[in-house]
């Protein structure tokens, strides 16, 4: 994804640099030269010959670039690899020597067993078959990239294919007045020395490697039930219990295999595309019978119709009036009343809303009495008896207890593979070595290897040099989580080696 992001950015830069972002299709050349602003990628038939005098040869401009007519005398002969193409002295006199100080060795590859990016390179006598195979292609890239007419030097393949990087520390090997100074081991396998160009900074793609081992974040931790958390695919860890009771987790190194896998996305378009009918276009099988030839016997049908509803309007034909009696309550009232005021003789009206003068004294008396009664005073006394606090410090050494713990044991785990590259379907042998490099024995050693998706464990291939209980469990990556529980205590200096095989998917 990142590569395409960069690719798009590069495309944007290219568009902006041309100054006409979307007008290219209007003035585009024939299909062979679509979008080719770089003279490097112009069709040969529409551009000057690549090589020029002594470089491209007469066969460069015409059809058949990859054929015998491609190379020409100066280019390298038939088929990009004929005479002069990969010869030992092929390009050096004509192409010149690069400035070695500008030449930087390639960055290292992911850490893997048996591979040292900055290490020594084999000589031509010890060149393996595949390397010779590869360098021929790399060499072809030299010749095409190092044409001086193109205005740029793009030596890429030689670095990737193992041409020995010339470090500035290397001293000149020999000097003469004809060929100038030559460096020792300047061009292995007899290839010409690449042009001094800045190397590709993106020389490694981790997607081309399968890595297994290590402890990727989040880091592995051990739960109370002795299970692991944070175990990611690729992780290879060992956890053990030291003599003082601590549980330690140690991760292995990371082992990487060069195993790129290519898949594809397919889209089918065209005039007929989309014509795939989802539903059925025609039904050939008729549904139901179109005609009945068999006469049905006569049926007797009894239909009883009942009156469902009837609207009948009836009039009053006779009326009988009955008047009922109305009840009457008889209320008797007094017929006569006399001497009414006699009932009011005993009534007395007291007027209390007016304070007389002779009553003020009484009021004052009673009010004083009320006041004297309300005040209930008594003597209150508080006694406080506080003493000054005193602080007494009386410290002395009661005793000294020294707890002595034994030195903790420590495990070192190392994972190895027997190869650094693998095709899909090939078998890779892995070995994991656990060694006690501490000062005490460790117990309950559990080694866990969580295989990545593209590594398939070969059943029955696991062996262990010590007593162990092997537990393969399916993991989240549709592969297996291999776990070995050592049954014995791993003493100081002791080690256990586990071997198993995996098939590369």
């Amino acid at each position, binding site marked *: *994804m990142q*590569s395409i992001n*960069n*690719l*798009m*950015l590069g*495309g944007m830069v*290219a568009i902006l640099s041309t100054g006409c972002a979307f007008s290219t299709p209007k003035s585009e050349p*024939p*299909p*062979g030269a*679509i979008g080719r602003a770089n003279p*490097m*990628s112009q*069709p*040969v*038939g529409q551009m000057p010959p690549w090589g020029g005098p002594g470089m491209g040869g007469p066969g460069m401009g*015409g*059809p*058949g670039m*990859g054929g*015998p007519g491609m190379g020409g005398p100066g280019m390298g002969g038939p*088929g*990009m*690899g*004929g005479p002069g193409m*990969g010869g030992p002295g092929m390009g050096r006199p004509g192409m010149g020597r690069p400035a070695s100080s500008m030449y930087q060795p390639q960055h290292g590859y992911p850490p893997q067993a048996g591979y040292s990016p900055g290490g020594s390179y084999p000589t031509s006598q*010890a*060149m393996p*078959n*595949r390397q*010779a195979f*590869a360098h*021929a*292609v790399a060499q072809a*890239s030299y010749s095409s990239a190092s044409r001086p007419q193109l205005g740029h030097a*793009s030596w*890429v*393949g030689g670095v*990737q*294919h*193992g041409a020995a990087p010339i470090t500035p520390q290397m001293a000149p090997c020999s000097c003469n007045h004809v060929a100038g100074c030559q460096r020792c081991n300047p061009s292995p396998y007899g290839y010409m020395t690449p042009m001094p160009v800045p190397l590709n900074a993106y020389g*490694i*793609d981790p*997607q081309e490697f399968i890595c297994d081992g290590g402890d990727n974040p989040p880091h592995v931790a051990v739960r109370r039930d002795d299970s692991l958390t944070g175990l990611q*695919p690729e992780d290879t860890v060992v956890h053990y219990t030291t003599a003082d009771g601590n549980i330690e987790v140690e991760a292995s190194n990371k082992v990487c295999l060069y195993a*790129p896998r*290519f*898949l594809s*996305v*397919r*889209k*089918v378009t*065209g005039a007929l595309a989309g014509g795939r009918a989802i539903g059925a276009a025609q039904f050939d099988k008729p549904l139901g019978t179109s005609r009945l030839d068999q006469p049905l016997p006569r049926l007797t049908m009894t239909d009883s119709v009942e009156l469902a509803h009837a609207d009948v309007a009836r009039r009053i034909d006779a009326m009988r009036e009955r008047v009922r009696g109305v009840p009457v309550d008889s209320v008797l009232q007094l017929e006569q009343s006399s001497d009414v005021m006699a009932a009011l003789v005993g009534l007395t009206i007291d007027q209390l809303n007016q304070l007389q003068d002779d009553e003020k004294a009484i009021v004052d008396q009673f009010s004083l009495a009320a006041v004297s009664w309300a005040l209930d005073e008594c003597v209150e006394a508080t006694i406080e008896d506080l003493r000054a606090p005193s602080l007494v410090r009386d410290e002395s050494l009661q005793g000294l207890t020294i707890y002595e713990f034994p030195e903790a044991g420590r495990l070192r785990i190392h994972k190895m593979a027997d190869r650094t*590259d693998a*095709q899909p379907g090939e078998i890779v042998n892995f070995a994991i070595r656990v060694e006690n490099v501490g000062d005490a024995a460790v117990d309950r050693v559990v080694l866990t290897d969580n295989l990545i998706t*593209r590594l398939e464990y070969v059943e029955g291939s696991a062996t262990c040099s010590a007593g162990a209980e092997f537990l393969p469990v399916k993991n989240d990556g*549709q592969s297996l989580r291999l776990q070995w529980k050592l049954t014995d205590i791993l003493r100081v200096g002791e080690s256990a080696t586990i071997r198993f095989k995996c*098939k590369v*998917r």
Partner: protein
Amino acid sequence: MAYGNARLLELVCCIAAMSVMFSDANAADPSDYLSNTGRHRILSGDMPPGYLGQARLAGRGLVSGYFQPIALTGPKGTRFALTRNGGYDEGTELLQAGLLVGSVYRFQVTRIPLMEGAELYPTLEVIDRTYPPPGLATRYPIVINLDQEDLESALAGKMVTRVIYLEDPQTAVPMQQTPITNRPVDIAENQDALEVADRLGRPVAIVRIGSLAPPRTPALMPGFFFGFPAWAPIQTMDTRSSHVPAESAQNIPVRATQPVPRQTQQQHLDARSSGVAPAVTVTDQPLLK
């Protein structure tokens, strides 16, 4: 007065042009990697051959001039051939070659099963390269496997676009992938093959299979063959020519540390000195299993 009107008109035009230019500023934001519409922002798999490769050449890194090894296979019996001397040779069932990144190659497909006499001329555009360790470039080419459905669809008048991508091992398909079981990810017409491949890995090549035939006019040939870009043949070596017995040679694991047999080296040098052998590479085993 006329001069003033002209200046005013010029100012108005300038303001209008600037407003149009800045109105599209949001679309050029590089942080918006993938648009909301599901389409690739700048590049798509439906672009004509040559666009994506050219964009890659102008992008990051230096890939121009590198011959990326590829391996092209198909249904059993199908033969593939690249241009040679303006034409095609008989072809091989396993076509291996080093192709220039950014160039478009028109190869020939013949002897299609159940399609006697039919020929196809698809295009192959290498839009990115791989970065193998030293000595492993030709052992790990970009594997392109065309199946019978591709060829039949193209012969039926359809256009088949295959975007080959390098799979991300972190999100790899958990199944064995061989040239036989290597099934493509089929997408609908409204989807962009480049975008889907970009989500699954790193696109490295595009194969477009149509029913276009070579033109009869010689003047149109360079256009049809995209300028006859250079390519480097990769030839497998027969192990029987080695001094190693055939039986033991089959048992020897293929390792990068094995030296080339002396006889093989001599043959290689002889071939280069005589100018007979067209191939430039030699290996000890077929590149694909």
